[in-house]
């Protein structure tokens, strides 16, 4: 197996309740070149799970392994794109993309590679610009180019389009699919949008909350590009929506109860 989650669990230390379990016993296998979405309501731990694959967060139980090797810390074999582009404002676009390459290759090589990926995300014209001169969508494309330029085995995306407007998001969806087809990367994509998950992925792993767990695993066998009005898309959307409804209600109910506790 390419990426394997083996009984992964995470507990946080909590001041009031002692310990808080985000999720436990997560088992999941992901194939090479697969585009997998982790979908779930807030609080289900999908972003935490992704951070664990990145090596930014440690699991408290079980293990995650990439090509048979246990993940222990962050490394350039797993590129990550965050919800906030997290580009360095003191570097121009091209230098942002070459940042992770500087230690492993010559300057010329790094720049050629950066230019290649900037072209892939249609930003060749902006390589001398600074990040404050770019729109949110452009910044996110630079972040994608930066992650890809490291030639990672795995591309991790944590709600990368969550902060963008609808229009831009659709454009970037199409671009991401093109980039994915061109680079043949394995992508693990975290989102809370059912439509986004259906539009993009080969497979949707639906997570529930309190406790966080996997409640369903859908294969999406609909040819791309997928239209929102396609009968199969609509059907799948309803199916996932039904699954998530109970989970979302659970979160709402709990939040309301907390509200009541605080009020009185």
């Amino acid at each position, binding site marked *: 197996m390419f990426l394997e989650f083996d009984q992964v669990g995470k507990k946080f230390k909590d001041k009031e309740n002692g310990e808080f379990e985000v999720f436990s016993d997560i088992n999941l296998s992901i194939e090479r070149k697969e585009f997998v979405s982790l979908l779930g309501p807030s609080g289900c731990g999908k972003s935490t799970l992704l951070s664990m694959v990145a*090596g*930014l967060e440690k699991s408290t139980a079980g293990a995650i392994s990439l090509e048979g090797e246990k993940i222990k810390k*962050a490394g350039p074999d797993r590129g990550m794109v965050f919800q*906030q582009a997290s580009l*360095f404002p*003191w570097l121009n676009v091209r230098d942002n993309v070459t940042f*992770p390459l500087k*230690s492993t290759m010559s300057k010329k090589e790094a720049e050629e590679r950066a230019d290649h990926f900037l072209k892939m995300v249609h930003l060749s014209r902006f390589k001398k610009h600074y990040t404050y001169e770019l729109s949110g969508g452009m910044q996110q494309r630079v972040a994608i180019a930066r992650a890809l330029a490291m030639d990672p085995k795995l591309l991790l995306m944590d709600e990368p389009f969550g902060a963008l407007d609808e229009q831009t998001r659709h454009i970037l969806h199409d671009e991401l699919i093109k980039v994915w087809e061109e680079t043949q990367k394995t992508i693990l994509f975290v989102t809370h949008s059912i439509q986004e998950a259906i539009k993009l992925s080969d497979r949707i792993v639906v997570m529930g909350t309190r406790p966080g767990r996997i409640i369903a695993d859908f294969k999406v066998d609909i040819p791309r590009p997928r239209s929102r009005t396609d009968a199969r898309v609509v059907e799948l959307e309803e199916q996932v929506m039904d699954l998530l409804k109970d989970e979302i209600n659970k979160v709402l109910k709990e939040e309301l109860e907390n509200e009541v506790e605080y009020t009185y």
Partner: protein
Amino acid sequence: MKWNILIKRILFLVAVIGIWQLIFTSGLLEEIVFPSPISVGEALYNGFTRGDFFSALGASFKHLFIGLSMAIAFGTLLGVILGKSKQADETAGMYLIAMQSIPSIVWVPLAIMLFGFSEFAVIFVVVLGGTFVMGLNVRTAIQSVPPQFKRAARTMGTGGLRMFFRVEVPSSVPYFMTGLRLAWAFSWRALMAGELLSNGPGLGYSLAYAQDYARMDQVVGIIVIIGVIGAIVDQFVFSKLEDNVRSRWGLA
């Protein structure tokens, strides 16, 4: 700068000098306590043409340059230690704020007792004037590196010294610039306090000297010089630098 703003400012200055001249001509105040704008102008002119003010300015800038450079170096070192080590910050951070709140003129008697009426005593006061404010700003700079930058850098295989020099240091530059501007401002004030009570040379000493000889025209003239230099350096050097950095870093 827009022309109309410049004109407003010039008109304001003209009005102030006009009122000043009016009060002088009214004869309400003796000339010894209230010199005319013209005599102040003459004092300035004479001071510069005879070279007295130039040598005083030169000495002052020498003290400032040495003192401020040391303040920046010590302050940066202090700030990096407190910013990087939680232990150090919990232990000593509060005392840095306490030290910062001491007006620099308070250090003058201590400096004179330690080093006598020497230029070194003046420089000592300037160093103390700038170090703490620099340290506080560098500490804030290091502590406010966005965690998101560090997380992103880690996923790109960055850690250790490379993380410090390639991510934390450049990310701190805007606060560092604020630190520079404030360190300059505090050092400049400390310099005048120190020189006022020193045995010269320096602008502050010239001021005390003019006072001793009851030369109110020179006293006012030197105050004008001190104010103009402070404003020019702040506006055209440090504020400009800070604004440029902040806009480049996407903060303004």
